[in-house]
Structure formats: structure tokens, C-alpha cells
């Protein structure tokens, strides 16, 4: 039966700690993204998350940092 994992070797486990950290970071970003999405729906999101009708982008073009030139 597929439900029983065959050949369990306890001395060699699959890597779990590192992937788990990735998953936790992913969960945090999921929550943050949901919060920004909610703010967007409520019309409260600042910056580039605002709809493109605002003037943010043309203004942004003029403030390029000196090291970028």
C-alpha cells in the first residue's frame, strides 16, 4: 500500500530544516501580500501599489540615484 513509506532509513533523513525555513518565509510573505492586497482594495496602498493614474511614476523617473547613471 502506498500509504506506508517503504525502506525508512532513520540515519538519512530528507532535508527538512532548510526547506522549512523557506516555507515559513513564504508564509510571512503570503500574509504581507494579503495585507497589501487588502489595502489596495480599500484604496489605502501607497507608492507603486496605487493605480497607475497617479503621478508616482513620472516623478519616480526624475529621482534616479547618482550611482545609477
Amino acid at each position, binding site marked *: *500500500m*502506498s*500509504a*506506508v*513509506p517503504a525502506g*525508512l532509513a*532513520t540515519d538519512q*533523513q*530528507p*532535508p*527538512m*530544516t*532548510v*526547506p*522549512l*525555513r*523557506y*516555507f515559513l*518565509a*513564504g508564509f510571512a*510573505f503570503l500574509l*504581507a*501580500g494579503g495585507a*497589501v492586497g487588502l489595502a489596495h482594495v480599500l484604496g489605502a*496602498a*501607497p*507608492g*507603486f*501599489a496605487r493605480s497607475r493614474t497617479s503621478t*508616482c*511614476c513620472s*516623478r*519616480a*523617473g526624475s*529621482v*534616479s*540615484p547618482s550611482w*545609477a*547613471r
Partner: protein
Amino acid sequence: MGAMTQFVPVWSNVPVHSRRLANAALALVAVGVAGLAGAFLAASVHWIHGFGGLLVLGVWAFAYNLARTLPPVREFDATEAHFAFALACFVALAALGFVLAFDLSTPVLPVAGVARPQVVGAHATLAVFGAILATVFGALYQLATMFTQTEIAGRERHLARVEYAYPAGVLALATGRLFAVRPLAAAGALAMAAGALAFAVLLGKKLYEGRVERTPMLSRYAVVAVALAAWSPLAAREWVADPLGRDALFGPTAGGHLLFVGVVGFVVMGSLYHVVPFIVWVHRYSDRLGFEQVPMIDDLYDDRLAAVDGALLTFGAVTLILGQTGVAPGQATIAGGVALAGGFVAFAANLVGVVYRHGRVLPERFHGRPENAD
């Protein structure tokens, strides 16, 4: 990225190339993504470059680490070949993303002779169809055969060969979109859709042949096969007409949910229905096997709740899509959305319940036993 860091070493049966590099990649990506999102919110171009650079470094470190973990190219099986392709897409899309960010302040794209929407199109194509969907296909090659206890043999090898049109098609579509070469993009889109359809048939066939007990994982994979089979001809039709259009970036407009919920969502949820109970089972019960009565992996979650969330999600997705395409009245969209949300809650409750009831979360915190160290 986390799933790949786990799957690649397990399936290729080798240790990950460097754990330090894997941790460093996570740190770079986490700081990069958080900073980049903050910079976008603050509309601060200066910080977009800085954090975008960190993000690119993190993604490249991740891709390098896993590329070194994979076996040599000539020993690739289908899964590893798809993972390698997805990694290459990660590298390319991170670079394109950085160019896009850079172009916000210093217009570099006109110099290269490409318009911004072209680069956005190529970037998005590589991300969704290269990095995400190719990873999904690679993983399903393993999971669908492993859990149905079948293998790809005989004439199915031809299907698997047709499926290799998928990565080639993604490459052609992305290149065609980048340089606005319409015939190339359309040909790539057709090849991609054909490959995706072949994969859907292959997946459906394996699930049909498998003489094993139905699990929530397999029933969700069955939804994936149906959704993919429905999505690919729709996308092909849309892309032949307009492969470069912004509206048709991910195929038909109403097909977005078919792809992101029906295919990607159900793959993730189906896999989590195995992965979460499996990890809990290994930690809690594997050492006691043979000494005392232990539950099976599939006994850890609630079967009825799994059936309810599967039905809610399937019903919700179908209703939502029918509502959006105008087949069903407009209220169907809302009803579908509500059913989907209810399904997500039931799904999350079921899996959180597994960890809560069997995971010994609290005692572990109190005793601090190092049994989770790998």
C-alpha cells in the same frame, strides 16, 4: 524554492550541494523581496535597485546551489530535466526583472531596442510557465507514478516525448515576446499547449490505471489533469490569435482561475495533503512502528473534512469560471468565490488539525527535545 530544496536532494538521492548557500540564498531572497516590496510601496526607485540586486543574487545563489546538487546532464530523468529547465528560467527571469527595475530610473530598454511591455511579457512567461509550471510537471512525473504505483511505459513514452515540446515552447514564447517576433511566439505557444495537453493525458492515464486506494492527494491530482486538459486548447486558441497581447499573457482571460486555481492550486493542496501528514508521521510515529499500534499516514487527517473541502473547492472553481466566462449568470462568480474561500478554510483547518492533534507542538516547545534536527 523551498520545495525544490527538499525535492531535488530526495529524488536524486544526493545531499544538497551546500546548506550554507541554501540558507544564504533564503536570507538574500527574504531581505530582497521584503525590501523590494517596501521600495515599491514607498515609490523609492533608489531602494528598488538595491533590494532588487539582493533578490537577484539570492535567486542566482539558489539556482547555482541546486544546479550543483543535480546529477550530470546525461543522467537526467524527466523530473530532473524539468527541474533543470525551471532553474534556468529562474536565472533568466531574475535578470530580466532587474533590467525592468533598472529601467524605472535609467531608461536602458530603448538602447537595447525593446519596449518595456515586451520585457514584462517575457519575464512573466518565464516566471509562470518556466519556473512554476515546469517545476510542477517535474514533480508530478515523480508523484503521480509513485503514488499510483504505475510507471510510464510502452506507448506512453511517446506522450512523455511530446511533453518535451512544453519547455521548448516556453522558451520560444518567451523569446518571441521579448523581441516581439509574432510567428515565433505563436509557434512556441502552440508547442507549449500541445506539451501541456500531452502531460494532462499522461497524468489522467496514470491516475485511471492506478489500482490504489483513493486519497485526497490523488483526487486533487485528477482535478489538475482535467483543468490542464481544458486550459491548454483554450490557451492555444487565444495565443494563435494574439501571442503578444497583454490580455493573453497567461492564456484566455477567464482561464486565469483554471490555471492558477485548477492546476497550480490543486497540485499544491493535493501535495500538502500528503506532505504535512507524512512529516508529522515521521516525527511522531515512525520510531514506534513495530513496537505499538500506530496510525497510518492517511489516518491523521479527517477524511470527511477532506471530501468537503475538495467538493467546495472544485464546485467553487467551476462556478467562478463559468460565471466569468458568461456561461452562468453573474451571481455565480460571487457564489463560486464564497465556495472557494470556504474550501480554503476547511483545507487549512484539516491540515492544522493534523499538526495540532498529532504533531505534539506544545510538548516539544516545553521539552525542547532535538528530535526535529535533520
